[in-house]
Every structure is written in structure tokens, then in C-alpha cells.
């Protein structure tokens, strides 16, 4: 048994670590919910043996935060280094190393991208968890000095019709989670006045007890106003700006780094953080104003690990040390222990590093915005982090030790998948088309999208819903015009198909990159950068880590081939529950550059009697397709990526788009060619006459439903057909028509379906009630 701890102060204990044997070390870690392994506990013990003293509970908690998977990427770093971090691109200014990636926009400006997961908190409290996820990613962008201009929300839930009876204790129904998450994002995002312009929603049984809530943010910053997450100079002052510190969010990162279980509901209450959008909005304004006026030497948001991580990491990144006075931290409730103050993850807080001469000016700005700003510490040259409480030192550690962290080369293995082609009889094609449109994975997202203010600010030029008013359809990417004085734009999309990744992590991940590229090109932007949020199960399980490695390699392959690099990202492990690990989910957001937003292309069909072309090859690739899933089939070949061909398609498309030969364009993804074609038809409220005979060597169902990568559908006016055909290798597969129906012809097959019925299937797929 660990001996009772000695009191250092009323609320600080010395933890008797030096004389503990292995079993006692493990027990201590468990009892205090530190989440540290035996090896890690030993390493800590050795450090304190060298220091010649026992640690305080504050120090032990600090280590637990900094050494958590969430903060130090101990299982993933070696793999990431070889894969997703290992792509460089000339446009990158500062990537991977800070809270958000910085990429060149034009000579004067850079754009900023951040993507975070907020999975476990959202599984417990969907509304608050999702809201604080948005809050966190906004701070990631603001702390680079950038103004947030767009939010993106890739979401993953269990099936909405999942039988209530099958839920295990403490697990909330997917419907409840879905509604809560969407309204949390809406309420927070809308309140802070940043448009939510893109996202995605996927459904799969593997997410039933562990939904995924990923949130991304794009910002824009003048290059000369970029600020870094580091302490400036020795003697600078640490200023804590924003909300008070409370017991909410304690152990958030250790909690993010463990599996959820039945008791999580009661046990993990303090880990849930709570959002306060009405503090955030002025906080953002004040921080950006102070930075614009050149009053800050460093700025970092409070994320996972709270004050402990932010104050240490800023000092470490600046090559300095720091001392923080815990008595100065404004608290929400009395009686908080120093260790709680040190690791609390209360929301809406930022840490600023300020030269002493500028303190008054900084104060004035925060006063004007009614945002509290408190001096809490000072930067020094000790390369140590020190915390005092009631005049006594309660924490004093070498920053290299605290943040150098731990790294594991964990064992992994790739679990082979069934890739044999299943036998089946071809279903009724019209029924299947309706079934696909009515699938929650495919049907209209309008109910979600319109709950978000996607155009506050007035710069969302291509909106997520496109086409004829009151009959609008899904777009491929949103286009933003961030600067008043310029028509240059950014296109934004979010993609991954977890079903493909489940069937083949490598090609599934590569397909996600391919889809990003397709979506960005479809609106006439040049793919420019990506951020990744890698959501996986427990990395201590060899199979899970094998999937992770395979996905990372797939991402690396495809992204290198497309000359796109990952400029920021996040790894979320331990996404497991009663049903095992989630499907491997490397969620991506992609950013494209657009010289002139007035050349944006939308996805809605424009006019009758125009021609419809298919760019790219259709293949017998139905593994992981929605078609197979609806038929209950396993196996099959997952779509491969052929970057050389896709790049050819992409370049020829961008070329004809610049020549203004393209009236509308949409990429082909989940559900295949027919879903894509119909989405285009819905947006223009026009009919389509398709003749698939020109697609070589495939059965009709495969032509319609294969999810092969590298493909787009393009609408072209009759007058432009000749020029279009001469510059691309696209094949003509039909034409638009006034009659509001879909006609499909292919080697003897010939049937017609009314558009309004098809639209109804698509419109009603996602029950929002």
C-alpha cells in the first residue's frame, strides 16, 4: 500500500513515490486516475530520485496531463513522422508544430487551418461536448492571430434507427446524440458569428457507443500579424484572459485517452467541459485586437491539459522557463485544490505573453470588451516550470522532462479483410436508386445545414446548398472570399468514407484524399492543403494500430501524389465501446485556392438540353459501397486511387472551367454515378436522359453504383461541346431535359422515374425530429 501522503500545505500533498514498488506504482496511477503506465510511473520515479525528493500531487497531475496520448501523441508520433508529417509543400509557412497550420494565401495574407476531435465529451453530453469542441478549435485559430472565417463539422453516429433495446447501459441513443451534437454546434457557432460552411455526417454501427465529433476551423491572418504559441522574452508577463477556472473539464485529456465504459456516465462528469459562447465572442475580439496592435509576444489557447500544458508549452517553445502563481487564478468555485486549478480544462481562456510596458494597454482593451484579464506569472530563463500557492512552491520541474514526453513503438499487425467478390442477383434498379437516395448516409443534409448560419459575415460565396431557391442541392465545397479588397477565394470541404476504410484502411484513406481533391476541383479551385483528424480505437491493440498505420500510409501515398500536404491535425485513439473499435476514420478537411471566386462552379444543372459528361474511369469497385451495404453483402474490391489519371482529369477540368465551358460539376462518391447525377438534377429541378452504353465493359448496376474514385459529372452547353470534347477525355453520357424525370438506358435496360418521387426519397432520408 502506498503510504499516506504528507501535507505540504492545506491543500497540497507530497506523494510518497520514492519508495514505491511496481505494484504500488500501478495502484497509485489507478487510484488517482492518472492513466499512466507502469513504465511511465517508473520514469517519473527515477526523475524524482534524481531530484532527491518526492513529487507533489500537483506535479504528478501535471505529468499525467502532459504524458497523455492526447497531449504527447506517444503512440502515433513515430508513425506520423514517416507518413502524414512527411510531405512538404512550398506554400506551407508553419505547419504541424502549433495549434493550427499556416499556409500562404497571397503576398500579404496567410490562411490558418485547425481540426480537432471532441469525441468522448460529446458521447456523454452531446450538446455541451460539441459546443465546446467548436469553442476549442476557434481558439486554436485565434491564438495564431487569425480571424476565424469558417467552421467545418465532420460527424459520425450510430444508425438513427438503432434498436433502443440493444443499447448497453449508459450509452445514449444515436438519435439523441445526433440532435444534441447538431444543436450544440449550431447554438455555439451561430452565437460566435462564424459561419459553418461544410461538414459531413456518417452513420455506422461501430459509432453507436462512441460517436465522433470532429470540428475544424479556417482563419485568415496578415502575415505580419502572425503570432506564435510561445513565451516572448525573459521578464514578460503571463496574462490569463477570459473565463474563470472551475472543476469542469478536469482530467479531460486522460479521459480522451481511455475507452468509454458503462460507468463513464456517472464517473466522468467533471471531464465534461461547458461552453459559454457569450464569453468567447468578446474574448476573440479582444485577443485579436491586442495582437493587431502589436501588444503580445505570444498567445496560446487553453486546450487539453489546461493551465499546466499551456503555461509549460509556451515557456518550452520559447526556450524559456516560467513561474505561475496559482493564487492569482480567478476561480468559479471556492475550495478548489491547487492540482485542480493546474489541470482544469474550463473553457474560454487564453494565455498571453506580454511585455511589462504593454500591460496597461492590454488591460484597457480587455476592459472595453468586459473580458477579465489577470496577471498570473512571469517568464524567466530557468527552462523549468514553477507554480506557487500561498507563497510556497508546489511544482517545479524541468520542462524538457515534463514535455519531452514518452514515445512508443507499439507492435501492430494488419488484419486481413475479405476481398472476394460476393455472389448476388441484381436487384430491381429503380427500387435500389430510391433506397440509395433514402439512405441516411446519402440523403439530403439540408435540415442540418440550414440550422447553421453558413453566411454570417457575407463572404460565403458558394454556399453548402446550391441551385434553384427552394429546390437546392448539395454542393461539393463551399467557397469563401475572405478579403474585402480581393476576389481571391478559398474552397472548403470535409471528407472520409469510413465504410471504405473499414474494408480497406489503406485504400479507404487514399480514397478520402481523392475525394477531397475531387470536391475542391468540382467548384473550380486548386487543391492546396489538408488537415486530418485520425479517429481510431485502442492503439495498444495490435489490430487497431495496424489499421492506423495502414491508413496513415494510404494518406501519405495519395497526398504525396497530389502534392497536398497535411498542415495540421489531431489523433484521437481509444474510440471504443461495447461494440469494439470504431471503423478507422481519418476525417479530412481540404482547402483549395481560387484566383477569382466569380468563377466558382456549382453542382446544380443549369438548363435543359445541355450535355452531361463523365470524367474518369468507372471500375468494378463495389467493396464498401452503399450498394453492397444495402444488399447486405460483404467483401469486394474497395476503390483504388489512380493519382496520375485523376490528376489528368483534374487538370483538364480546371482548364475547361477557366474557359467557361462548364455549367455545373459534381464529383461521384457514395452511392455512385446515379446519386451524383440526381443531386445535380434536384438542384436545377431538371430532368436527365442518361445513356450508359458508352461506358465500356461493365454491368448496368456497376455503372450506376460503383464508387470508383477520380470521377466527376460535368454539364456542358451544346455550343461548347466540341471545344469541351477536344480538350478533355470525358465521355458524353446523356443530356438534361425539361421533362422532370430520369431516364436510364443501357444495353436493353430502359426505364424512367419521376424526379419528384426521387427527390422525396432523398429529402426524407434524415429524420431531424
Amino acid at each position, binding site marked *: 500500500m502506498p503510504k499516506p501522503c504528507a501535507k505540504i500545505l492545506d491543500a497540497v500533498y507530497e506523494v510518497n513515490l520514492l519508495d514505491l514498488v511496481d505494484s504500488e506504482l500501478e495502484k497509485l496511477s489507478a487510484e488517482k486516475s492518472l492513466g499512466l503506465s507502469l513504465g511511465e510511473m517508473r520514469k517519473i520515479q527515477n526523475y524524482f530520485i534524481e531530484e532527491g525528493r518526492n513529487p507533489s500531487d500537483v506535479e504528478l497531475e501535471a505529468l499525467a496531463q502532459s504524458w497523455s496520448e492526447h497531449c504527447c501523441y506517444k503512440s502515433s508520433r513515430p508513425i506520423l513522422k514517416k507518413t502524414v508529417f512527411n510531405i512538404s509543400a512550398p506554400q506551407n509557412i508553419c505547419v504541424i508544430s502549433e495549434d493550427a497550420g499556416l499556409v500562404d494565401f497571397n503576398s500579404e495574407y496567410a490562411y490558418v487551418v485547425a481540426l480537432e476531435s471532441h469525441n468522448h465529451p460529446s458521447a456523454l453530453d452531446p450538446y455541451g461536448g460539441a459546443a465546446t469542441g467548436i469553442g476549442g478549435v476557434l481558439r486554436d485559430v485565434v491564438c495564431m492571430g487569425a480571424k476565424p472565417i469558417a467552421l467545418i463539422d465532420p460527424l459520425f453516429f450510430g444508425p438513427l434507427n438503432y434498436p*433502443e433495446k440493444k443499447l448497453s447501459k449508459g450509452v445514449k441513443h444515436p438519435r*439523441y446524440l445526433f440532435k444534441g451534437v447538431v444543436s450544440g454546434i449550431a447554438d455555439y457557432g451561430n452565437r460566435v458569428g462564424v459561419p459553418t460552411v461544410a461538414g459531413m455526417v456518417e452513420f455506422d454501427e461501430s459509432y453507436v457507443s462512441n460517436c465522433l465529433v470532429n470540428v475544424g476551423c479556417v482563419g485568415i491572418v496578415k502575415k505580419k500579424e502572425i503570432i506564435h504559441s510561445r513565451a516572448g522574452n525573459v521578464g514578460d508577463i503571463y496574462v490569463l484572459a477570459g473565463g474563470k477556472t*472551475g472543476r*469542469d473539464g478536469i482530467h479531460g485529456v486522460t479521459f480522451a485517452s481511455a475507452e468509454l465504459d458503462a460507468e463513464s*456516465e456517472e464517473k*466522468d462528469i*467533471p471531464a465534461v467541459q*461547458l461552453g459559454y*459562447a*457569450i464569453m468567447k465572442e468578446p474574448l476573440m475580439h479582444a485577443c485579436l485586437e491586442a495582437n493587431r496592435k502589436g501588444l503580445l509576444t505570444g498567445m496560446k489557447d487553453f486546450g487539453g491539459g489546461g493551465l499546466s500544458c499551456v503555461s509549460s508549452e509556451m515557456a518550452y517553445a520559447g526556450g524559456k522557463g516560467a513561474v505561475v502563481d496559482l493564487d492569482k487564478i480567478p476561480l468559479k468555485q471556492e475550495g478548489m485544490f491547487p492540482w485542480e486549478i493546474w489541470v482544469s480544462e474550463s473553457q474560454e481562456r487564453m494565455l498571453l505573453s506580454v511585455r511589462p510596458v504593454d500591460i496597461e494597454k492590454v488591460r484597457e482593451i480587455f476592459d472595453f470588451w468586459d473580458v477579465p484579464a489577470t496577471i498570473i506569472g512571469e517568464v524567466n530563463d530557468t527552462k523549468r516550470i514553477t507554480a506557487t500557492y500561498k507563497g510556497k512552491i508546489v511544482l517545479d520541474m524541468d520542462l524538457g522532462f515534463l514535455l519531452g514526453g514518452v514515445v512508443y513503438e507499439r507492435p501492430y499487425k494488419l488484419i486481413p479483410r475479405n476481398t472476394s467478390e460476393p455472389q448476388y442477383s441484381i436487384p430491381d434498379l429503380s427500387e435500389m436508386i430510391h433506397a440509395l437516395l433514402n439512405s441516411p448516409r446519402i440523403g439530403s443534409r439540408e435540415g442540418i445545414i440550414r440550422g447553421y448560419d453558413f453566411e454570417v459575415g457575407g463572404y460565403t460565396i458558394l454556399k453548402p446548398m446550391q441551385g434553384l431557391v427552394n429546390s437546392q442541392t448539395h454542393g461539393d465545397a463551399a467557397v469563401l472570399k475572405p478579403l474585402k479588397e480581393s476576389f481571391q477565394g478559398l474552397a472548403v470541404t470535409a471528407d472520409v468514407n469510413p465504410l471504405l476504410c473499414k474494408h480497406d484502411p489503406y485504400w479507404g484513406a487514399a480514397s478520402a484524399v481523392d475525394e477531397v481533391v475531387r470536391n475542391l476541383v468540382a467548384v473550380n479551385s486548386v487543391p492546396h492543403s489538408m488537415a486530418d483528424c485520425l479517429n481510431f480505437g485502442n492503439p495498444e491493440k495490435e489490430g487497431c494500430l495496424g489499421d492506423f498505420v495502414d491508413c496513415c500510409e494510404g494518406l501519405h501515398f495519395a497526398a504525396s501524389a497530389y502534392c497536398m500536404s497535411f498542415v495540421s491535425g489531431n489523433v484521437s485513439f481509444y474510440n471504443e465501446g461495447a461494440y469494439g473499435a470504431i471503423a478507422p476514420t481519418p476525417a479530412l478537411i481540404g482547402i483549395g485556392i481560387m484566383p477569382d471566386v466569380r468563377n466558382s462552379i456549382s453542382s446544380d444543372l443549369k438548363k435543359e438540353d445541355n450535355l452531361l459528361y463523365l470524367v474518369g474511369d468507372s471500375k468494378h469497385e463495389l467493396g464498401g459501397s452503399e450498394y453492397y451495404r444495402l444488399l447486405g453483402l460483404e467483401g469486394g474490391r474497395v476503390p483504388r486511387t489512380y493519382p496520375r489519371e485523376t490528376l489528368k482529369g483534374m487538370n483538364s477540368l480546371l482548364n475547361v472551367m477557366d474557359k467557361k465551358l462548364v455549367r455545373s460539376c459534381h464529383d461521384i462518391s457514395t452511392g455512385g454515378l446515379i446519386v451524383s447525377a440526381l443531386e445535380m438534377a434536384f438542384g436545377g429541378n431538371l430532368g436527365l436522359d442518361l445513356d450508359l452504353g458508352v461506358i465500356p465493359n461493365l454491368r448496368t448496376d456497376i455503372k450506376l453504383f460503383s464508387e470508383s474514385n477520380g470521377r466527376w459529372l460535368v454539364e456542358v452547353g451544346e455550343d461548347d461541346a466540341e471545344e469541351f470534347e477536344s480538350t478533355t477525355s470525358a465521355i458524353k453520357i446523356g443530356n438534361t431535359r425539361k421533362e422532370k424525370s430520369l431516364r436510364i438506358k443501357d444495353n436493353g435496360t430502359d426505364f424512367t422515374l419521376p424526379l419528384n418521387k426521387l427527390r422525396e426519397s432523398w429529402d426524407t432520408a434524415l429524420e431531424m425530429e
Partner: protein
Amino acid sequence: MIFQAEVRIELKPGVIDAEGETIHKSLKLLSYPVVNVNTVKVYVITLEADSSEDAKKEIDGACRRLLANPVIQNYSIHIENA
């Protein structure tokens, strides 16, 4: 039989009440001598059930499934004959 249930949903202690805090701040600005504001959500639900116990059971289910989140909220149910 028709019953009327009053469901009262409150945030657990320690959970920040953003709305309550905003109202508190506003009332103070309007110079009311207010020390604290908590918001409570009340649903008055009319339903059919065989007995008051049944009604309570139904509503309890609805609370757990839809209306309240036990992680951050407490709820109480009061049933009356309508």
C-alpha cells in the same frame, strides 16, 4: 385516463449555467440586487395512461431518452390527474 405531468429539469450543481449567468449579469447592469440566477426548464406534458404510476413511468422514460441528460441535469416529475 388523462394525466398531466410537470417535468422540471435543472442543471446539476457545478455545471455552468451560461443562460443564468448572462441573465444575472444583465439584471445587475439594470441595477437589480441579484446574487444568482439559475434557469430551469419545465415541460407540462398531457398524456394518456392507465394509472398515475404508469404515467410516471412513461414520462420517466421520456426524460431519460429525450428530455434530460443525466450527465449534467437532474430532473423531477410531478403527476396530476387532468
